[in-house]
């Protein structure tokens, strides 16, 4: 359920926008959606929400099906790992970071700032 991809949301650049109801991303879950043409991945792990780019910086594959552990996500295709906190590439084959975004919860909605 938490891995379902949602449809595009329309938003002004630089503002928080509603991403999905908070209940859609339970502890240990993740969800990807496109906001203004940008693929965003929201993860719920270690009692926190994180929002990062859903696109691996190595070979532009979606990170959504990757394994989340210890505040990092691993791309299932070639194994690149990224910090959910900083976006830093933690191991080869990636050497470049992924974008991270501010995330908050307002009225039981997850909001992300692109």
């Amino acid at each position: 359920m938490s891995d379902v991809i949602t449809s595009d949301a329309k938003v002004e650049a630089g503002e928080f926008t509603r991403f999905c109801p908070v209940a859609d991303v339970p502890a240990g879950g993740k969800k990807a959606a496109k906001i203004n043409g940008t693929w965003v991945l929201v993860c719920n792990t270690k009692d926190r929400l994180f929002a990062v780019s859903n696109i691996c910086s190595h070979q532009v594959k979606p990170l959504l099906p990757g394994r989340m552990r210890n505040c990092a996500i691993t791309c299932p295709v070639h194994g690149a790992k990224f910090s959910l906190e900083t976006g830093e590439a933690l191991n080869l084959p990636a050497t470049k970071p992924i974008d991270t975004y501010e995330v908050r919860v307002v009225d039981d909605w997850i909001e992300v700032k692109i």
Partner: protein
Amino acid sequence: MSEQILEQEQDQSSQALDRGEARCPDEPTTQEIIARDKVTAPGWVCSESYQFLGDEDISTERYYDPEFAKKEYDNMWSRTWQFACREEHIPEPGDYYVYDLGRYSFIITRVAENDIRAYYNACLHRGTKLRASGTEGCTSEFKCPFHGWTWNLDGSLQQAVCDWDFPHVKAEEFSLPEARVETLAGFVFINMDKDAPTLEDYMGPEFMAHIKAWGLENRYINCHVSKKIPANWKLTMEAFMEAYHVIETHPQVAVSNGDANSQYDTYGEHVNRFISPLGVLSPHLKGQHTEQDILDQFTVGDSSFLEGADRKLGEGETARQRMADMMRSMFEQAANADLSHVSDSELLDCFSYTLFPNTFLFPGISLPMVYRFRPDPKDHRMTIYEVFFLRPVPKDGERPEPAEMVELDEFQSFTEAEGMDPGFGAILDQDTENLILQQQGIEASAKPGLTLGNYQEIRVRHFEMAIDKYVSGQ
């Protein structure tokens, strides 16, 4: 006159001991200390298995000669069972963990619930590693990042991109080559040698009986630290094989450690151990400290467990018994478990087992470590040393995720590692300082061999005998 004769006879009788039979004089043995405990120790604790194995020097070129290191790769690492990862690293099908040993690299993956494989980590097209070293994750296939050749989880070839150009590639001949895999107590072991004995035969019946009693499959990695040590991997391992060095190297521990009267055992070719009793005074310090001093200076693997405990001994109380009682209560609380049946010795003492070639298990409660030692692939005079702390899985909770490895550089202190008790880190720093000087000294020495004590350093000899056997191709 008659008393003098008696003394002479006693002197002669002690001189007449066979080699290896001498023990720390006028001190209780480890078994005698354990026998006085309130909660009786199990059979695996209350047994001895020492054997004199010779007293010749150990040649030192093994610690610096690149040819020797090459022989180890060719004849030893390729034929022995090695701890590659814990099952908790790969709990679900598709989970994988990359284990490297020198130039060798393996993808350890769970193909199905009870099917773990170890694939040589290299594309069969032009050799690229399918997964980077030191990584782990979850996948449904192994795709090469270079040209995209892809293998299924079970190792069968899924796709050779542009297969029209590879009529000579037969899928049935292009499955990923595998090393052997066996699991034991939550550990995943691999062996590159198809003809090697089973893991059970390799470890031997005594050790198999011991490890089955420990329940290490019900532990999880609470802390994992890695650091490079500028010394050969064998030399680094040997620093942890005896308590003989405690009085000089770790004086802060000696007050509460029976170092010179620790017990040493060997089992077959691949396993040895010591039991180092804690909560008792070092024989070196006899008469210099009270029982209260021993209690006051007791340090354990994680001293935070004992914060706020009553440390004032009553009349006639021993430090050892008080420590056992305190630990029982502290660990029962911390692990939410009933430890009333666990012996004082298991709670207190340091049990150190070597599994040849490169793993140490410490099955005790207060010191629950696993050590792994690997040669640095680029420098055989450098060791990659790892410390894992294995804590019991909480009784009522879920199994926690295994801790991420904290990687220290060569010049960082173990005390800087998150999750490691600073007192324990300081001990490892003292060992590291010795190792730097020992590697350098061995290379500078006019003496081409190490001289070993017959009893306290039997584990070093036993270990090097196995090295010699494999390296010589036997």
